[in-house]
């Protein structure tokens, strides 16, 4: 077997394509939900009251300090014990969102804290309420300033989707493992998968660069 033979892998490219599409779908869904979770969690984590702050900090720390695979198992196999049964794909999206949300909330929190005090004072001096200041003065520049870190986190989230094959989601790595079981061509299949992931990451990065320019034109100004 010491030669590379891609025919077996390529003849099952339809399977791979399905896996790829599913990977893209669950990743994008998770990114969107994670971002919403992150904004809420970041906001709450900056609340003065400990009762509000502490649960959020606990959420973030527990997620950040345990392996993702364990979180996936607990959601898929553990929740039914509490009467909540999620389909594999739903469970995967939920797990990825919770996981990504914890990391992104740290990033967004840093962004919010990085907003110059003078910005908030200017808002106050204009008579704006705290909520108006947060929505109109703080949030957008905060997200804009940490956008590159968010993109990096989204990429890690995309890659972490390879783990959810463990709960029978037929995403890219899972499909690859299935094909591997059929063809026994492990090297070939992993090389192909690696190339696909790198391509997916490149596409994600590229579209985020464009999105950044559209959403935050003020970051790219030259006098």
């Amino acid at each position, binding site marked *: 077997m010491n030669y590379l033979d891609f025919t077996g892998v390529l003849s099952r490219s339809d399977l791979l394509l399905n896996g790829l599409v599913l990977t893209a779908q669950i990743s994008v869904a998770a990114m969107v939900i994670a971002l919403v979770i992150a904004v809420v969690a970041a906001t709450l984590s900056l609340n003065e009251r400990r009762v509000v702050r502490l649960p959020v900090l606990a959420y973030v720390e527990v997620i950040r300090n345990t392996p993702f695979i364990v979180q996936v198992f607990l959601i898929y196999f553990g929740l039914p014990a509490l009467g909540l049964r999620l389909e594999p794909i739903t469970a995967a999206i939920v797990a990825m969102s919770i996981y990504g949300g914890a990391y992104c909330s740290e990033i967004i929190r840093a962004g919010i804290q990085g907003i110059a005090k003078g910005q908030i*004072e200017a808002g106050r001096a204009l008579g704006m309420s705290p909520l*108006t200041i947060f929505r109109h*003065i703080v949030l957008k*520049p905060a997200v804009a300033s940490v956008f590159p870190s968010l993109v990096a986190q989204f990429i890690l989230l995309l890659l972490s989707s390879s783990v959810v094959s463990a709960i029978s989601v037929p995403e890219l790595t899972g499909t690859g493992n299935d094909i591997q079981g059929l063809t026994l061509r492990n090297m070939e299949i992993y090389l192909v998968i690696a190339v696909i992931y790198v391509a997916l990451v490149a596409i994600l990065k590229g579209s985020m660069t464009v999105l950044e320019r559209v959403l935050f034109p003020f970051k790219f100004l030259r006098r």
Partner: protein
Amino acid sequence: MSSIERTAAGISVVRASQVCKYYGGFQALDHIDLNVEKGETIVVCGPSGSGKSTLIRCLNALERHQSGKLTVCGVEVNDSRQSVDAVRRKTGMVFQNFNLFPHMTVIENCMIAPMKVRGMSRDQARATAERFLARVHIPEQADKYPAQLSGGQQQRVAIARALSMSPELMLFDEPTSALDPEMVREVLDTMVELAKEGSTMICVTHEMNFARQVADRVIFMDRGSIVESGAPEAFFARPETERAREFLAQILN
């Protein structure tokens, strides 16, 4: 303007009596007494750390004084939400570092408060904003972002932004000290126009020519107290205290 007429002695815009402000154990304002009448232009000067910014910031409730009585634009400044909101709505503030909102265009900077605080429609707010941008002589920069402007232009936008709320009192905290020397003039010119049009203004600044030109009164602060206060000619010609003399010697080389 009704609120102003309600105050005791004619049309006082600011009445401070025995106002004290502490940061922890440090006393930043020490029994400040100050009256500002409608239409007056006051220049505040003094060495670094003397409490000039603190005073200005207490006037629009960005900082809260701990004792003494402070009435601004007819509103007594206290901890209540209504008082703070009312005071801030009636005062406009211009900061040393402009503090423009970098993610909004110039005109959006001037529209946001009228829309979100006064509840103006977008069109109304735009019309008002355009008017004030014209008044500070940069109507053509309306659609640029702050980062695309020079420092002097940015500070003029900040002035327009404050004016867009039609404040009864304008506060300036060293508005020209972050500017390149060539841009100082354009901002001072704008401020001179405002003063001559009859706005009530309190300006912390070291630009003594500005003080000579338009100030009705110069106030000299040191270590949290108002040490001297008087017409600019008198103040510059014959400062009463040793501290003021020293300070003027340094500032005027």
